[in-house]
């Protein structure tokens, strides 16, 4: 009797002794978890705030309000209204003349050059196209808001240290003085930089935009999806549901898993050798980029799709077979629709990875400087990650903020894709 009671009390003691330790280890584990989450969140916040901090200023651009007299003497001295003559008129002089109205004292060659460089060198092209569109403007005075040169814009945004010696910076003392004067007159304002979303690449930061890269990336992903999704899903269905289980299919499976881990630049080399050199497809084209990314995404889609197929409860297969459905009816009437949301989610996440890929695209020439906006997947084009890479490499100060802005556009694109994946999953997911 006493033995048993002492026994039970000792069990309480033993448990009590251990309890503290158990709770402590549980507490520690939670602590580790929370710490790592906080760490990750902190990095994410630093990452985003740094990009946004550097990039947000690229969404505005300094512009100068200017009146330009479309002097018939310069544009069309013989009054022929001949398009060819008007096209080749000296529009630079028109821009210079109206700038000179602000600062009549400018005379030396150096000063003239500096004054001209206040505004973007795209200004004269803009006036040219305005005149060509409407020749009745000749002889009138246009009130325009024209882009400042990127260097001036950088100065306005506080990115130029004017305490440095004049030779050490890209903006001269005269330009600083003139800009400040124009600013006090209220002629300079920061406006939304629509060029960023409506132009292709350019050597001049103020004329550069991501539209070409955005469309290039869009074409590429379209091709990737069209090629890789049906093939990947079909391969997954075959391997999962129909292929005999033998050494050969095991071998195929191991290799698919290996392919998913192959460095992406290898796919670029493959694309260069096969698509461009062997099949003679155009270089720098989204078509080739899309095919290369499709190769890269293919194993990821197969793996995700097989996982989705495996997660379909076998009771559904039994039920379909039980009423006499053939294997292919079972798969396509029941298993496939149930696996589709998982397949889509996996594929879109695989494609999101492909969207951010730049290494394979370098190999197939998509690193080229392309100004034109592609209108078909066969046109030469840039891609968003490659555009980021190109701009990050550019020496002009104006490209620093544009690099961050392009990263923001890329991240936004990714966010849209991942949200689509979640939306599709919720839409097609069957509630049990």
């Amino acid at each position, binding site marked *: 009797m006493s033995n048993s009671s002492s026994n039970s009390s000792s069990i309480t003691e033993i448990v009590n002794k251990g309890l503290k330790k158990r709770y402590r280890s549980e507490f520690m584990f939670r602590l580790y978890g929370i710490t790592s989450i906080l760490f990750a969140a902190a990095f994410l916040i630093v990452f985003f705030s740094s990009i946004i901090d550097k990039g947000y200023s690229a969404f505005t651009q300094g512009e100068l309000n200017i009146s330009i007299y479309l002097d018939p003497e310069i544009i069309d001295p013989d009054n022929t209204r001949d398009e060819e003559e008007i096209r080749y008129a000296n529009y630079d002089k028109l821009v210079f003349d109206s700038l000179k109205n602000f600062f009549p004292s400018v005379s030396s060659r150096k000063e003239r050059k500096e004054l001209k460089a206040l505004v973007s060198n795209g200004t004269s092209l803009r006036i040219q196209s305005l005149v060509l569109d409407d020749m009745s403007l000749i002889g009138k005075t246009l009130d325009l808001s024209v882009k400042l040169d990127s260097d001036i814009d950088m100065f306005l945004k506080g990115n130029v240290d004017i305490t440095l010696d004049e030779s050490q910076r890209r903006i001269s003392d005269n330009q600083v003085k003139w800009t400040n004067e124009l600013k006090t007159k209220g002629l300079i304002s920061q406006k939304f930089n629509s060029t960023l979303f409506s132009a292709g690449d350019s050597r001049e930061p103020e004329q550069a935009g991501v539209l070409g890269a955005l469309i290039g990336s869009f074409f590429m992903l379209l091709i990737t999806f069209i090629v890789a999704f049906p093939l990947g899903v079909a391969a997954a269905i075959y391997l999962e549901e129909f292929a005999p*289980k033998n050494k050969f299919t095991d071998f195929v499976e191991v290799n698919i898993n290996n392919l998913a881990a192959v460095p992406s630049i290898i796919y670029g080399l493959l694309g260069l050798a096969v698509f461009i050199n062997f099949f003679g497809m155009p270089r720098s084209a989204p078509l080739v980029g899309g095919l290369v990314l499709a190769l890269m995404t293919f194993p990821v889609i197969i793996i995700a799709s097989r996982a989705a197929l495996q997660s379909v*409860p076998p*009771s*559904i*297969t*039994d*039920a*379909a*077979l*039980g*009423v*006499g*459905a*053939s294997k292919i*009816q079972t798969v396509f*009437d*029941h298993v496939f629709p*149930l696996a589709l949301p998982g397949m889509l989610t996996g594929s879109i996440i695989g494609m999101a990875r492909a969207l951010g890929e730049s290494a394979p695209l370098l190999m197939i020439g998509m690193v080229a400087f392309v100004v034109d906006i592609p209108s078909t997947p066969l046109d030469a084009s840039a891609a968003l990650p490659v555009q980021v890479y190109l701009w990050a490499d550019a020496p002009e100060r104006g490209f620093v903020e544009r690099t961050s802005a392009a990263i923001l556009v890329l991240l936004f694109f990714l966010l849209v894709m991942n949200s689509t994946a979640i939306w599709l999953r919720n839409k097609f997911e*069957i*509630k*049990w």
Partner: protein
Amino acid sequence: MKNNELITLSDDFLTVGDTTTPNEKIMESQDCCVFYDEAQALRNINLEVGKKEVLSLIGPSGCGKSTFIRCLNRLNDTIDSAKVTGKITLEGQDIYNSDMDVVLLRARVGMVFQKPNPFPKSVYENVAYGPRIHGMSESKADMDEIVETSLLRAGLWDEVKDRLNTSGTALSGGQQQRLCIARAIAVRPDVILMDEPCSALDPIATDRIEDLISELKENYAIVIVTHSMSQASRVSQRAAYFHLGHLVETDATEKIFGDPDHELTQNYIKGRIG
């Protein structure tokens, strides 16, 4: 572990076997053996299934009841490692013969599973799926009629007639199982296999399914696997006792539960095994 046990059993295991013969047999198993790789799960099963009768398969867990019932519509084909030997006939035709089409076999031998497994589609679609893939209806009206009769026979029509378009998975457990029965009878099978159809249901739903089985017996041959001895004695006319892959004894249900011939059967029904 379990499989090893099976292998160590000798082949001359003493059984009483099938001592009864139904009036009109529809399916017959002769020396049916099932192997999962090397392990033998069923040994020389000889059993007849009669028309318009309920045959219950009873026995402790892992004795091969479910394996056997899945041989009757060749659902074991989906398991790569499973191999079936011997002969199983449906109205005299060997179902494992190459000229027996497995799709046709499964249309003639329907199945209801342990866990209700309606398709995640509408109630209507659940019932219509079988007839549709077999091309059993000419028109929409035909199909409506098939669906209605099947649901009526499964005793579900009154409960679902106003919501044929709701998902089958939104029904209660008992309704889902009756929907599965309706789905099985919609293709007008000769035999219905039921693998523990009530094990996931509450007592009231179980009662309804049992009543339904008794009604369905008028038109179909039914083979039911059950762990509930009271259920077996309520619904079946003949009962077969399985033990470790052997068919120990088959007899009229009253005989099995009243005065079985074999000692193992006695032990089981008295609750000493299982």
